[in-house]
């Protein structure tokens, strides 16, 4: 958005053809607009109508009104998938946000090896989610995994990381944190580097301790970034799918079954498209809710109009 505004201003200064330059950005947007309508917006609208039907792709769709939504809230597996997803968010979101901020602050210091550290922390993020799942499946193997091997040096008996209902979700959360924390670190790092040093120096000259500088200068100025990071992390973790699918398949005993995975199972393994679409709309409503919360917080903080 910032870039578009800059271009408009440049255009005005260069030849004064304000109207002409106002159209140009939209012309650039046309290819994406068509792709968006065809592959995102259109199917999303169609999905709503499908969610009002009972349909197995090949037969005739039968209109059932909001019955799929009613059934969903009486479906123990859906409730289980919803609570599992919220549990996963509880395990990952604080770690990803606070951890990401701490790492960003660390690698923002003028320390030796900070560039290498940034690279290493960010590196897992470029790995495909399925590969992440396979790597951690090996690490977490109960009997022959490397993690239990090292834990045995401390006298810890083998932990059934992926096959125990108590450990499976924390194990998936650990893998997810390792995989995605680098992204949050980068966002925080960009935010930290946007804060003028003069403000911190002024605070220090006034006698503020390091903690006071962080709490009264850095953190408030970092709040727009923090809000974005929190929202993105909430949205991404609510949609967790691939790493769970690879590492546990949703088991054991549905201990790691998530909402998106349940949607996949209903739609593409049981061919219950209407029911699957209803789940998709629940996810959609939740995510829209989160975005609205984000917007209202940003509005209050004055970061958007």
């Amino acid at each position, binding site marked *: 958005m910032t870039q578009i505004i800059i271009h408009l201003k440049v255009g005005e200064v260069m030849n004064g053809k304000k109207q002409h330059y106002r159209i140009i950005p939209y012309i650039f947007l046309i290819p994406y607009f068509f792709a968006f309508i065809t592959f995102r917006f259109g199917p999303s609208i169609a999905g709503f109508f499908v969610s009002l039907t009972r349909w*197995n*792709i*090949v*037969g005739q769709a039968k209109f059932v009104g909001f019955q799929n939504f009613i059934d969903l809230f009486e479906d123990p*597996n859906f409730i289980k998938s919803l609570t599992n997803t919220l549990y996963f968010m509880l395990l990952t979101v604080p770690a990803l946000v606070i951890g990401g901020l701490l790492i960003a602050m660390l690698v923002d210091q003028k320390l030796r090896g900070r560039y290498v550290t940034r690279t290493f922390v960010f590196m897992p993020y470029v790995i495909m989610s399925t590969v992440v799942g396979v790597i951690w*499946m090996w690490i*977490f*193997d*109960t*009997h*022959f995994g490397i993690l239990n091997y090292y834990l045995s040096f401390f006298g810890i*008996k*083998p932990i*059934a990381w*992926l*096959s*125990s*209902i108590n450990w499976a979700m924390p194990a998936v959360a650990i893998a997810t944190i390792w995989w995605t924390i680098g992204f949050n670190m980068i966002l925080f790092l960009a935010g930290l580097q946007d804060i003028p040093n003069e403000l911190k120096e002024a605070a220090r000259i006034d006698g503020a301790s390091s903690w006071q500088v962080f709490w009264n200068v850095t953190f408030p100025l970092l709040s727009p970034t923090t809000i974005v990071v929190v929202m993105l992390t909430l949205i991404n973790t609510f949609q967790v799918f691939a790493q769970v699918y690879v590492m*546990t*398949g*949703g*088991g*054991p*005993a*549905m201990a*790691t*079954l998530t909402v998106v*995975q*349940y949607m996949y*199972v209903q739609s*593409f*393994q*049981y*061919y219950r498209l209407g029911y699957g679409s209803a789940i998709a709309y629940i996810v959609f409503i939740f995510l829209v809710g989160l975005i609205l919360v984000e917007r209202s917080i940003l509005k209050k903080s004055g970061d958007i109009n």
Partner: protein
Amino acid sequence: MKFKSVLLVAIATVIFGTLLMAQPLQLAFWGGWTGPDGNVMRQLVAEYNSTHPDVHVTLTTMQWTPLFTKFLIASRGGQSPNILAMHGPDVPEFASYGLLTPLGSVIKAAGFKASQFATAAWNGTFYKGKQYAFPLDLHLNSIYYNRKLFEKAGLTPPTGWITGKEFLNMAIKLTIDKNGKHPGQPGFDPNNIVQYGIALYSLNWHGFLEWYELLRQQGYNFLNPSMTKVGYPLKAGERAWKWLQDLFFKYHVAPIGANSPLQDFLIGKTAMLEDGPWEIPAMKAQKGLQWGTFPIPQVFQHKAVWGSGHVLTIPIRQDQKHMKAAEAFVTWLVKHSEKWALSGNIPAYNTARKFAYSLPGRTGFLAGAPYEAMLPRIPKESEVFSSASVSPIVVAGQDILVRDKAILPVMKWMNEQINAILGR
């Protein structure tokens, strides 16, 4: 001028028409062979294409679940493949949707009859008395063994069916803790086992299949004769689960909740593995592994082993020309399916199956094939026998074989869930 134009158009039409006629007829063939088996099928297709210049078959492979979703969507849009591979138990579901062409007369015209095929494979092509597919192969469970670990334990690998007791004794001798002790010996430490006797699947739907074959060994079917409800005696089901559960929790011969039984076997951490013939390419690829197979143990009165089989179907909505070409291709493929044995699958066609006897590691599968027990063949197969984590058969297997829960309540819960799906 006018004459010249007409002449030009006529010449162009002739050239274009000739070019069109010279193009081979295109056939789309879809299958779920994403491993080395896909390469074997690709070679067979290439052989057909090179010997039949008037037809060109293109094989598309992807995992079975997305393949079937793709098939449903393609069918909806009138773009079905000309040939679709699936498993015998998948036939009723797609046939009940009206997506498959009945092929009884075609199969008869090709000269095929029941006596020329493995019984389970032939029976797996019918739904409501109509034949919808050509049988291609059988794939069933068997026990893979590590020859070196057997020799080390002073054991001779069996070549035929053995009893449950014999199998258990072998598994105990092959299970060793860090002090070199076996289960049952004084001082044996189940928390520090360095080598297990048998790798069994317990986290996915194979746990249920291991149970299902033991139910069939007692002479019972999973569903009632009309396939509308669960129909086995609870006692028989309990006995089957108990045998499996004891391997994990009483005798400690199988690692609990193993994430990858195949890998554990390949690297020599377990001496035996119960799995299907699709793992044969992985066995061959593992450097230094000397392996073989024997049938699963006969724990109860009868010999029975879970198995399935690939079949070849011809979806509806195609013109006569493509239909005839597809029939010719599938007939050729079944008749030339001896090379398909290289994929690990056991050809269903008797003549072709003979070749499998000359291949290493097939003993267990060939000895087990006559006793193969397929899952009940019902239209709701994808939901009742689903491999998804929410599937009652998967959850029940995990509860009993991983969480050591009391068998009877879990089994009753599983039955209720299955009955609910069947009654929906």
